[in-house]
C-alpha cells in the first residue's frame, strides 16, 4: 500500500483478474444450457411418449439422470446471474436491492437443490417411486 495519494492506494495491487468473473460464468453456463437443453428437447422428441412411466424410467438411467442434474445446476446458475443483472438495472434503493438479491439467492439455490434432489430420488429409486 502507498502513502495515501490516489495512485498510491492502488499501486502494486494490480488487477484482481476477477472483474469479468460473472460475465464469463454467464457464458460458461450458457454453453451448458445450450448443450443440455438440446439434449432434453431431443429426448422429448425421441422418447415414445411423455407419460409418467416412460419419463421415470428414463431419468432412472445414469446418463440421463446426470445430464438432468447438470441441466438444473446450469439453468439455475445462469438464471441467478441473469436476474441479478435485472435487479441491479432496475432496483436502485440500496435496502430494496439487498433484499431482492437475498431473495434471489434463496430462490435459486433452494430451487436448484429441490430440482437436483427430485432427479436423484427418481434415479436412486430405480424409476419405481
Amino acid at each position, binding site marked *: 500500500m502507498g502513502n495515501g495519494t490516489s495512485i498510491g492506494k492502488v499501486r502494486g495491487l494490480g488487477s484482481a483478474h476477477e472483474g469479468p468473473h460473472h460475465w464469463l460464468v454467464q457464458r460458461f453456463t450458457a454453453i451448458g444450457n445450450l448443450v443440455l437443453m438440446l439434449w432434453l428437447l431431443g429426448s422429448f422428441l425421441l422418447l415414445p411418449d411423455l407419460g409418467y412411466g416412460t419419463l421415470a424410467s428414463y431419468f432412472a438411467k445414469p446418463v440421463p439422470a446426470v445430464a438432468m442434474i447438470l441441466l*438444473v445446476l446450469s439453468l439455475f446458475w445462469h438464471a441467478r446471474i441473469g436476474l441479478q443483472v435485472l435487479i441491479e438495472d432496475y432496483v*436502485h434503493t440500496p435496502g430494496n436491492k439487498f433484499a431482492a438479491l437475498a431473495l434471489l439467492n434463496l430462490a435459486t439455490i433452494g430451487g436448484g437443490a*429441490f430440482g437436483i434432489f427430485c432427479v436423484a430420488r427418481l434415479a436412486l429409486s430405480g424409476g419405481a417411486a
Partner: protein
Amino acid sequence: MSNRPLSPHLSIWKWGPHMLVSILHRVTGDGMALAGLAILLWWLGALASGPAAYDSFTGWMWADIGALQWSGIDILWSLLKVLLKIVMIGLSWAFFTHMLSGLRHFVLDIGAGYELDTNRLWSIASPVIAVILTAGFWALLLLR
C-alpha cells in the same frame, strides 16, 4: 443521483432491429427464469412424487382440450388450462428466441458481426429463425 449529468443524446434515437433483439433477449431470459424454472421444478417434483402427482401436473399444464368442461365454475378452470397451454408454447418460443439471440451474443463477443448490414441482418434473422424452430419442434413433437 438526480443531479448527475446525462449524455446529451439519450433522447435522440430511432427503433432498429438490434434494439428489439436485445429487449427480447432480456424478456425471454427473465421470463423463463421466473415462470419456466417454476414449471420445471413442478415437473421434476411431480415425477419424483409418483404417477398421481404427475397426472395432476399434466392435467394443469397440458390439459386435454377436448375434455374441458364449459359450464359453471369449470369455465374458470378451463380458461386457466387453455392459458397454461399457451404459457407452455410461449416458453418453448422464449427458449428458442433466447438461444438464437444468445448465439448472436457469442458471435458479438468475439468481436464479429458489428458491421451495420451484418448486425441488422442477424438482428432480424435471430427472432425469425426462433419462430421457425418453435413451430418445427411442436410439429415434430405432436405429429410423431
